[in-house]
């Protein structure tokens, strides 16, 4: 561990994952740089204090999983389930992210500057996710709350079985999933979107986006909806 006044370096070439994660989890505050991540899984997960962490390179699965309060930047790509079940704080991926980014997140902001794959925002429960590029299929599946903002295109079956989450897409949507429909963009939505784009540092015009959400027709079982089941 190299500590300067401003920053602590944690080098995965010298420390093992447990040592790095423990240092990050136990710190009450401070700035950290993690070097040589080399695709390590479960890195910087379970953080619970307002620390600031920069990971220099690519991460494996579940990077910054269950994050609370911390601000984590991955300067590279992230594997499956980045910021899964995040509670609060900010997680930023400067490259691309794999499947299930931000899955089941309860709060906080996840920013993916590049593209992300299938199931981004699956079962999201209050997290906000902003993606600079495109997203894969089945994103926001059963999404319950929070916003998914996509500056590029969305893959097939977007928002399948969505509950109360809101989706904003600037590009093309390959197809919408069951019970997901395009909805009117009102002023409150444009304001919400502008705020999220600004927080994420994305230069995009809110009026170029369309909004999608639940038609709420599958909320209670109804035999007339048989074709949708």
């Amino acid at each position, binding site marked *: 561990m190299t500590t300067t006044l401003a920053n602590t370096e944690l080098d995965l070439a010298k420390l093992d994952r*447990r040592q790095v994660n423990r240092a990050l989890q136990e710190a009450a505050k401070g700035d950290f740089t993690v070097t040589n991540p080399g695709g390590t899984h479960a890195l910087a997960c379970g953080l619970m204090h307002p620390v600031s962490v920069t990971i220099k390179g690519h991460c494996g*699965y*579940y990077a910054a999983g269950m994050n609370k309060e911390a601000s984590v930047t991955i300067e590279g790509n992230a594997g499956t389930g980045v910021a899964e*079940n995040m509670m609060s704080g900010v997680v930023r991926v400067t490259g691309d992210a794999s499947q299930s980014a931000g*899955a089941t997140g*309860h709060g906080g902001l996840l920013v993916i500057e590049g593209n992300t794959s299938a199931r981004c925002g699956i*079962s999201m429960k209050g997290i906000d996710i902003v993606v600079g590029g495109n997203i894969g299929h089945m994103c926001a599946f059963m999404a319950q*709350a929070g916003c998914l903002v996509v500056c590029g295109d969305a893959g097939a079956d977007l928002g399948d079985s969505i509950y109360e989450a809101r989706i904003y897409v600037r590009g093309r949507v390959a197809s919408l999933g069951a019970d997901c429909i395009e909805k009117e963009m009102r002023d409150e939505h444009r304001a919400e979107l502008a705020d999220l784009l600004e927080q994420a540092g994305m230069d995009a015009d809110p009026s170029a986006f369309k909004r999608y959400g639940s038609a709420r027709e599958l909320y*209670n079982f109804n035999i007339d909806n048989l074709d949708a089941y």
Partner: protein
Amino acid sequence: MADYSDAPRTLPKKPWTFDDHTLSEIRRAAATGIYDIRGGGSKRRLPHFDDLVLLGASISRYALEGYREKCGTDVILGDRFASKPLHLKIPITIAGMSFGSLSANAKEALGRGASAMGTSTTTGDGGMTPEERGQSRHLVYQYLPSRYGMNPDDLRKADAIEIVVGQGAKPGGGGMLLGQKITDRVAGMRTLPVGVDQRSACRHPDWTGPDDMEIKIQELREITNWEKPIYVKVGAARPYYDTALSVKAGADVVVVDGMQGGTAATQDVFIEHVGIPTLAAVREAVRALTDLDMHRKVQLVVSGGIRNGADVAKALAMGADAVAIGTAALVALGDNDPALEAEYQKLGTTAGAYDDWHEGRDPAGISTQDPELAKRLDPVKAGHRLANYLAVMTLELQTLARANGKSHVRNLEPEDLAALTVEAAAMAGVPLAGTSWIPGQ
């Protein structure tokens, strides 16, 4: 023409294939267009622990004196990788049942009863309630596909973590909690609109196979400092492979739930036609552990239709380390009590058959979110009843273990068993009574 009008007639005969119950279901389906949803486990006669007997002591086996010689019952769960394994006084645990399907009072009562006997209780789909955490000395936190109410603080408050891949009542199916039970509190804990029919996912959202699950287990350990035992719970579908893959993924404990296992609400067709009986599942799970040289190193918890100390003794003799009970615990709290017969009649059912737990109208105040009904269950008294019942099961278990010459219940072994039916002999892999024949061997 001969007159046969006075001739004797054969009695009217109802078909076995189309019995009254089947006919009533066809009529119900025709009238409503909806499949039948219910709680509980498989209701049909299946090969079960009743089809096994314990042999007892004889000239070649030395019995222990009842009430005098000690027969230990404790069990350690999770010492493969966890630095803080659970040390339970008895090998009978309370299975995961969600707050949502059960009232907060019922969850509290389960915690009280389990804690009084030094055993664990388990959360469920819907998260951890303070009532339950407060009253449970050993609390296992379920990690389910829905991740309702899932948060790292509760994860750290738990004494163990159970990754739920499946349930015996519905291997391959997700949870279901219908609108009537999604009250403000339940909805809040699950981040759902009040009154929706909630279908929890059947697959985990952030992994797709055993190799991914291995990484997920690492993440959970990293978040909890490698302290907590990690269980993997599977419904009895392919128990040999599911157990082996759980071991490979790094589980400390494998929970195998057979098709008799209860559920809060599932389609009847699912409950009755998917999965294999508990008896068959135990044997396959033990075989996987033995093949990997992991038997007793990764503990096996068995559930699905456990009712008394004899079931426990037989499960342990087959190689389980502990059992879990769901339905039986609810009955001990007061579920399906004949004293409430008049109210069951009003619901169109009868005590012992009541299984419309998803409707939330439980007169016993257990499987409900209606505040008036829930008030009927006194968590302290109900907790006492559960503790008594667990004590009886434990005494029965010890009685049977001593009769087989065991100073600790964990020493029960397959050699102490014989089967009463060919099916049970084949499934459990023990000889048919009076023979040395194990079908298939």
